[in-house]
């Protein structure tokens, strides 16, 4: 019994840390009961207009993270929303104004956002000057953090030193919990080879930075893993309307599938539609997040919409074991089905990591209101944060160690069902030997 007695304090500490881990990892949630005032965290999203269906659930995800954290070292966390939509669409200029407003709020130590990579471009310099921490739950543009695509799947991402330009001489203040577009092509290449067992594909792109990039990365990985890219490579421009010559040439060269880099707006789904009569409807077609969960794409592809596979540089939380408790808790707090999206769960991690960094910065500052630079430093040193996405660490660029690409498959020709497109697999390029997981 004496031994047990001796162990007891240890057990208590252990139990407390477990409880803390369950609370989104904010170390020492309610260790201090003294009221030290408010700390503000911003949420910078399109909260009105068409993109509000993505922005609002993210706001709620961060609010849920704050609610789970409760009082942090005696400070009350208050979530302050900022809307970057103008006339219903995200606006980089409005985003910049929002960040300026945040910089002016001395209690505001960091924010979650933005949704769109082009908004991030105007926001990062302003926030960097003020040492304001940004954590995006949705930006996947390669050039925001890196100067080029991952060296394992090289292609020219056309960054031109953007990441450095945005930060100037300031230390990095920008982090993200989703991974980058350069893994989309390789993930689909692996999916084609490993799951669909396809050895020969035809490849095309819309000849723009994003589309050509993911098509190049797809080609590199597909060849490296023993597949063959056949027929003429087709980097079409906006003047091309008839893809049948390319498709016929690919078919002729033995293609068992087609991969096209681009977006619905640059006619990727029309290439699929024109496969009708040249390929069977069961022939797989791959693309990036430019065509994922998009009713417009399904409408254009028409009867050929089934068997279109599209990737997205984010996780599907349902398929991450560690996300279950967060999803359950979130759904209890926000029961409206419209509030639950993949991004709302990702946002709980973005919010949790920010609150965690604030908590650490409070400790570093002797329990007092931390400085913005302290929060930034603490966020940069995030290591193995246990949240919905599993274990997250940030590298020197601010990119996450969880590099999951999810793959979805259209199985209906009904545009209204595009959002329910089933998940068919994922690949984590943060692992040593990434492989496609289908369950």
């Amino acid at each position: 019994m004496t031994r047990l007695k001796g162990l007891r304090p240890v057990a208590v500490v252990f139990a407390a840390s477990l409880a803390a881990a369950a609370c989104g990892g904010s170390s020492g949630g309610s260790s201090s009961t003294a009221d030290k005032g408010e700390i503000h965290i911003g949420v910078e999203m399109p909260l009105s207009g068409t993109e509000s269906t993505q922005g609002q659930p993210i706001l709620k995800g961060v609010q849920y993270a704050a609610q789970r954290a409760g009082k942090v070292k005696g400070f009350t966390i208050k979530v302050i929303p900022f809307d970057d939509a103008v006339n219903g669409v995200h606006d980089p200029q409005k985003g910049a104004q929002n960040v300026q407003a945040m910089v002016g709020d001395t209690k505001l130590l960091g924010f979650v956002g933005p949704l769109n990579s082009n908004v991030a471009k105007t926001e990062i310099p302003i926030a960097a000057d003020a040492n304001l921490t940004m954590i995006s739950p949705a930006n996947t543009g390669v050039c925001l953090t890196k100067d080029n695509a991952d060296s394992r799947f090289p292609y020219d991402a056309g960054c031109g030193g953007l990441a450095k330009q945005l930060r100037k001489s300031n230390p990095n203040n920008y982090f993200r919990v989703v991974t980058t577009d350069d893994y989309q092509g390789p993930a689909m290449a692996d999916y084609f080879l490993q799951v669909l067992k396809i050895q020969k594909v035809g490849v095309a792109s819309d000849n723009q930075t994003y589309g050509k990039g993911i098509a190049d990365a797809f080609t590199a990985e597909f060849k490296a893993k023993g597949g063959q890219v056949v027929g003429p490579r087709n980097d079409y421009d906006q003047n091309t309307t008839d893809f049948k010559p390319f498709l016929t040439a690919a078919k002729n060269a033995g293609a068992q599938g087609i991969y096209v880099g681009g977006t619905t707006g640059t006619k990727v789904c029309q290439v699929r539609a024109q496969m009708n009569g040249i390929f069977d409807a069961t022939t797989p077609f791959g693309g990036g997040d430019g065509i994922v969960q998009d009713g417009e794409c399904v409408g254009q592809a028409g009867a050929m919409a089934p068997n279109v596979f599209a990737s997205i540089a984010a996780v599907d939380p349902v398929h991450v074991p560690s996300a279950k408790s967060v999803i359950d808790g979130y759904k209890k707090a926000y029961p409206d089905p419209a509030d639950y999206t993949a991004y709302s769960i990702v946002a709980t991690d973005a919010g949790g990591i920010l609150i965690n960094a604030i908590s650490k910065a409070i400790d570093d500052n002797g329990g007092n209101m931390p400085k913005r630079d302290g929060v930034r430093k603490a966020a940069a040193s995030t290591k193995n944060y246990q949240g919905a996405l599993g274990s997250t660490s940030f590298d020197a660029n601010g990119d996450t160690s969880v590099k999951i690409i999810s793959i979805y498959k259209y199985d209906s020709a009904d545009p209204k069902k595009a959002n329910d497109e089933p998940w068919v697999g994922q690949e984590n390029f943060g692992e040593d030997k990434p492989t496609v997981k289908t369950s």
Partner: protein
Amino acid sequence: MATVAGALKQTRLGISGRVGGWIFYGVPLVAFLVLILPRLFLNPGFFLQILVFGVTDGAVLALIALGYTMVYGIIELINFAHGDIFTLGGFIGVLIFSLIGIVPGKDLNLGFLTLFVVIGVMAVTMAINGGINVLIERVAYRPLRHQPRLAPLITAVGMSFILEGLMFIWKGPNFIQSPDLLPGGHFTVLAANVDYRSIVLIAAALVLVVLLTLFIERTKLGKAMRATAQDRDAAQLMGIDINRTISATFFIGAALAAAGGILYGFYLHNFRFDTGFITGLFAFTAAVLGGIGNIRGAALGALLIGLIRAFNDGYGRSEWSDVLIFAILVYVLVFRPTGLLGMQVPEK
């Protein structure tokens, strides 16, 4: 510079004689024999298939090019709005089809009746589109007929943007779906699958072009159009109603563009508010390539552009298509400034 210009002129002169003709046609012929023809023997089926795609695309383009060439032939106006008139025709066609219950994805299975439905809808669409174009001519071009050439050119650019803007407001930024009433299935020649749809489309375009040629050569109004194109003042002195003749030209051009829009929709299924802008530019290029003002020239130019693109997409790399098309355009215009079949424009 003067020597360069002089040398160029001499080259042109040198190349315009009989020997020049041999060189002019010889160079592309050799290129064709060396680059393209061997592929025919390597895989005749594939070659044929690409050929059919090229001719089909060319046929649709021809229907738009005719409108450009007719208008230019008669009043020397590059009607920049014509490409958008083509899109508008497609939009109106989709609207009328939907009014009678034919929407994309729903197979009504009309059987033989389909032909009559298509011809009926096409006729109505052509009439509406023609009417709109006549109205545009009345409002934006006719008052400027005796003004400097730049004025109607700019109002044409303006009309193009107005039409695009209105179609954007009407249908939004997304691609709209067209029903497809072309017959399915294909027959096989030399291992090539030739779609019936391509055949129907080429036939439809051919019929329209032949009807147009007959109309211009055999009817009174056609004669009036030719007379107006040749010399407006003389035609007027002969008692030809110039305004009516020019209106008729705009009507026919837009009607053909509407037919082109509907066929384009059948064949490629999608278009949006700005589809006509680019397609129109290529149609205009086709008209110049064949010899602006020349009906057969426009059809030939469109056919060439369709073929170049199809063969390059099938055998080469797609991003070279535009380079090739315009390189050939420059080649033709430098040595034959009047286009392949010669210009037919008003005499000064």
